[in-house]
């Protein structure tokens, strides 16, 4: 008899978590529509044209940085799901650092881009719009990860309660998925 309220509480928590997850996935779906519109405009306006001056090595390097940050974000979430506080904090810091490195890489690419294909050119319009919107998402993701890291330093999250970590890490992975499509769209197709 006494286990009934506990079972109900567990079911209620799982139900709430399911609703949280569904809400986040719907948000991610709406964000995907934004990226899909801008990516398709690149093909509509420019076809498969790609300037020869595009820095291919830098594009590959910042792609590697973002993929590495996805691994550290995954490890942070996995660590907190197993009550590993040190692993959570270490991997969150690594993810935030890699986000900063990615933004520096985009900044270098922009400095080169302004010289070779300015925003007033056809490819420049697509390039700066896509990388700009994506960089804004990287920046907002890094800010959210930083807030979660700061609020989790005192042991606020644990194996039984880590939705803020899960939510922010899922958003970070979405930023990575968006780049997985943007990278070939801007750097590889021709």
């Amino acid at each position, binding site marked *: 008899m006494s286990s009934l309220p506990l079972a109900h509480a567990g079911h209620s928590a*799982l139900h709430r*978590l*399911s609703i949280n*997850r*569904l809400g986040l*996935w719907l948000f991610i779906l709406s964000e995907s529509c934004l990226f899909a519109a801008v990516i398709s405009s690149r093909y509509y306006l420019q076809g*498969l044209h790609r300037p020869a001056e595009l820095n*291919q090595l830098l594009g*590959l390097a910042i*792609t*590697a940085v973002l*993929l*590495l940050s*996805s*691994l550290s*974000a*995954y*490890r942070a979430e*996995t*660590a907190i*799901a*197993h*009550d*590993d506080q040190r692993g959570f904090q270490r991997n969150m810091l690594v993810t935030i650092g890699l986000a900063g490195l990615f933004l520096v890489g985009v900044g270098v690419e922009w400095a080169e881009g302004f010289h070779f294909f300015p925003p007033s050119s056809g490819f420049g319009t697509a390039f700066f719009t896509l990388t700009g919107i994506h960089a804004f998402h990287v920046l907002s993701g890094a800010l959210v990860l930083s807030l979660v890291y700061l609020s989790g330093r005192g042991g606020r999250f644990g194996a039984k309660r880590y939705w803020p970590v899960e939510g922010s890490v*899922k958003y970070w*992975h*979405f930023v*990575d*998925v968006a780049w*997985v*499509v943007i*990278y*070939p769209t801007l*750097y*590889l*197709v*021709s």
Partner: protein
Amino acid sequence: MQESRLGTRLRLGVQVLIGLAVLTVTEYAISAALPRGAIFPLIVIALAKAGLILRYFMHMAQLWRPEEH
């Protein structure tokens, strides 16, 4: 038990990253080797990479199996 589960999950993350790295190098090589008309394989590789992240990093299956971590 908890330690071994954590270790298994962390290893899975590294395996997914290796898969993503191999696919990225492949698309880069395809683009360099086939400067024209390489869009179809590039789309397939991009979708495969997105699928790996959605499946293993974002745990998309939780949408229909809520108890899964």
